[in-house]
């Protein structure tokens, strides 16, 4: 006696499975396209990056408490990739701080007592920073800090030193 046994899937089953697969494929393609569009239009939100937050917080403190923004110090010359600030510490002592943005992906903060290197701090995995002088209506010299995500401007912050007696 021969026993007939059903094998494989019916047309309807295959159609339903393909329809579900198609829906998921549609979602994936839509989301990928949107992600690419956003990547092109919007810069990375560096404020959610702890290393970038640390750089900005330290730089703000140095600039707020600065009494001068020298053009030169030792072998350093002030420019978009090097920021030199003469700043007052919490204990009342002064130091010259050099912010060095010359190495891609790294930021170095070197603090000097007189001409001796007193401390060095660095951050890795950070964007390209630029520091430029920004004249203000009050006549004060502020510092404009910018950071780029590719060609897109992601951070643009004007930091004005506090008035010192």
């Amino acid at each position, binding site marked *: 006696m021969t026993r007939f046994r059903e094998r494989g899937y019916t047309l309807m089953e295959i159609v339903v499975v393909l329809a579900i697969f198609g*829906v998921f494929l549609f979602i994936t393609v839509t989301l990928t396209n949107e992600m690419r569009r*956003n990547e092109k*239009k*919007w810069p990375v*939100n560096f404020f959610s990056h702890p290393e970038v937050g640390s750089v900005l917080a330290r730089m703000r403190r140095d600039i707020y408490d600065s009494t001068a923004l020298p053009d030169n110090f030792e072998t350093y010359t002030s420019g978009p990739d090097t920021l030199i600030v003469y700043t007052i510490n919490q204990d009342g002592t002064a130091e010259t701080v050099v912010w060095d943005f010359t190495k891609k992906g790294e930021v170095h903060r070197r603090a000097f007592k007189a001409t001796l290197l007193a401390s060095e701090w660095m951050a890795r995995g950070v964007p390209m920073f630029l520091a430029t002088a920004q004249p203000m209506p*009050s006549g004060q010299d502020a510092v404009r800090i910018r950071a780029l995500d590719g060609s897109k*401007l992601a951070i*643009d912050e004007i930091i*004005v030193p506090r008035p010192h007696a």
Partner: protein
Amino acid sequence: MRRSRGFSLAEVLVALAILAIVITTTIAMFAERAKRMREASETILAYQALSNEAEYWRRESFAQIDNPDNQTFKSDLDILAPLAPYTTAVKVETTRADIRNITLTIRWSRREAHLGVARADTGGSGLW
């Protein structure tokens, strides 16, 4: 004895309904997420520009604050490029003879962001 096999129509319909709900919810969730991400990016850029502009208005001489020709944004707004087209506005309110409330506004695609600066006439250098 004949044994029934497969699912009944009711079972298949219920399963499809559940699947439809799951897929619809997922799509709605992702769409909402994308919208909120975009709004967060816009807000971050807008408030960077507003905060820079506020630094200018904190240091503008008190006499210049009332000048209507001067009531425009003064800072570089390059960071707002992804928000284009956008408009900016400066509103100065006199609450007392020696006090000015300055409201800085950026408007773009049905959204807006504001930042207020209060200035007092101290008779000094116009530093604050």
